């Protein structure tokens, strides 16, 4: 069962703020990114899955108080400021929550072979032989 389905637009907006290159992903790219995350979440306790959804919903709606708009309606600069506030929060709970969400976004993006290739990561099981 999908964890992200209920919060997909907000999750994608967050992921694209964490990794700006994600904005250029096509439908298949997003599908792969989310498949990686769903697979990782499937092994985690349901309680943690619920907490993640609550956090994403909170990120979507809390900017209404400050900016008068939901997270998904903000420009990229304001989105970054919202996430930076979480990352720098004096509350460990919020920092930790954002750290987990950020980790998932980075996993979904950088664990894709296409992303590894795009940054020039070139490790090969054949080692030196593959380079010479």
């Amino acid at each position: 069962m999908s964890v992200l389905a209920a919060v997909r637009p907000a999750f994608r907006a967050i992921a694209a703020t964490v990794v700006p290159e994600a904005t250029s992903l096509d439908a298949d790219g997003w599908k792969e990114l989310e498949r990686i995350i769903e697979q990782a979440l499937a092994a985690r306790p349901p309680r943690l899955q619920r907490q993640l959804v609550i956090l994403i919903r909170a990120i979507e709606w809390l900017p209404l108080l400050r900016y008068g708009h939901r997270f998904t309606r903000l420009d990229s600069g304001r989105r970054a400021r919202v996430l930076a506030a979480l990352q720098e929060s004096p509350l460990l709970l919020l920092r930790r929550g954002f750290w987990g969400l950020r980790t998932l976004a980075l996993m979904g993006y950088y664990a894709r072979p296409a992303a590894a290739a795009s940054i020039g990561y070139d490790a090969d099981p054949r080692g030196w032989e593959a380079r010479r």
Partner: protein
Amino acid sequence: MTALPERAYDVAIVGSGAGGGTVAQALAPLVRDGRRVVVFEQGPRFDDDEFTGCELEMASALYADGGGFLTAQGTMTLAFAHAYGGSTLVYTGTSLTAPERVIRHWGVPGLDHADLLRRSQRYLAENNVHLLPPEEINDNNRLFVEGGARAGYRVEQFPVNVKGCRGSSLCNLGCPNQAKQGTNRVQLPEAERQGVEVVTRAEVLRIEPDRTLTVRVSEKPAGAKGRPSEWTPGEYRVRAGIVVCAGGVIGTTSLLLRSPLPRPRRVGEGFTCDPALILVAEHPHPITNDVGHPKSYFVDRGAEQRFVLETCMYFPFTTAKALSGFGADHSGVMRAFPRLQMILVLGCDAATPGNRVSIDGAGRPVVRYRFTDETVAGLVEGTRAAARIFFAAGAVRVHAPFANPPLIEARDAERVNELITTRHFQEGKVAVSAAHLMGGCAMGAGAASVTDGWGRVHGLPWLRVADASLFPDSLEINPYVTIMALADRVAQGIRGDAAALLG
């Protein structure tokens, strides 16, 4: 209710890593004497061609929680493997012997450094430990040597236990060329040749006071890597004359806590882990970093400043996770991957009240860990030293999680002490991970310990511990050789007591 199938062994070893694999081989001669010895390993046995080097695929297959086992505070991840060979599958093969000052500090009655060293040297030889020749050293390591010398640090080369290393750089994902001489390549196969049985995908749920183990053998999940278990899936009752717990710090300690035994009060206490940060620096030109052995050199400032620096090279997601922040700056560092140099900073933590392994209501392990001021100070000093080495090696900018902003440009190289400070350490913001898990079943004497100097659990002479959970305090270096030496000692004690305990 159907009775569980029963099996009987003279010796049951729980875990197959540096501790369990060593004990298995060292007790194999008992099989010749007609004794039955079995090893239970929670993870699967992998075939050689299953090590692909793909980051997520291998991390998910080899590590508990994919390498992201979280502490109860949610501020640090712990890396340990579940596989035939345990965590020896995923280390880099760096092979150091215990420092004399540390063993003296442990103060375990009857345990002396010379004895450990003698046993360690035997395993160094058995595992083909040697220094890599200069032509196999990549730029990432060479720059550490050059920068370290220029910055005034004493850089030492790691002896490593490889045979036929092709320089894949993928050690932490399981060597695709089977070059590392872990227990999966050396001790376990030898033990099996001599008649020791190894049962994989077999989790020991608890140990009863009558020396019966409840063992759950799992089915191989559809599409998963690894072979099916040697036993039919299901639960078993296994009677054993002697039980050796070697499931690693988390496995052994949680097993003892789950078991209805009259165990010593100190089980779970004294957890240490050398918390670590991955630091990266950008050079102006591409360097060889994702090819070649990743961890060939180190700087040991443990005694003086409570940190150790090691060369390292990680994979895209692990690297991305280790960097602070997000957005354009973060992406900029990731896009510089072919120009990145990496250093692992390990803080030498000490056994501290409250830092411990416990279990939750369902018997699952829970690790409680708070960073002491001394540990944070060690990590900060280590980060400053790493930054100096990076800049001395020619880096144009350094990413330091204890600086805000974390990117330090070369023009600010002289200001690292001012920019990298403890006030920028915020739990839940800086990515800290640990792979040197130690303590929980400390050796020693009396009520302050769990076992004696031979790994005998106090009050339960048939129950032994033979892994890093024996360490009464941090070892301050890569622990596998010391684990093997201690496990060898535990096995010697078992051989000596076998007649009395087994009849």
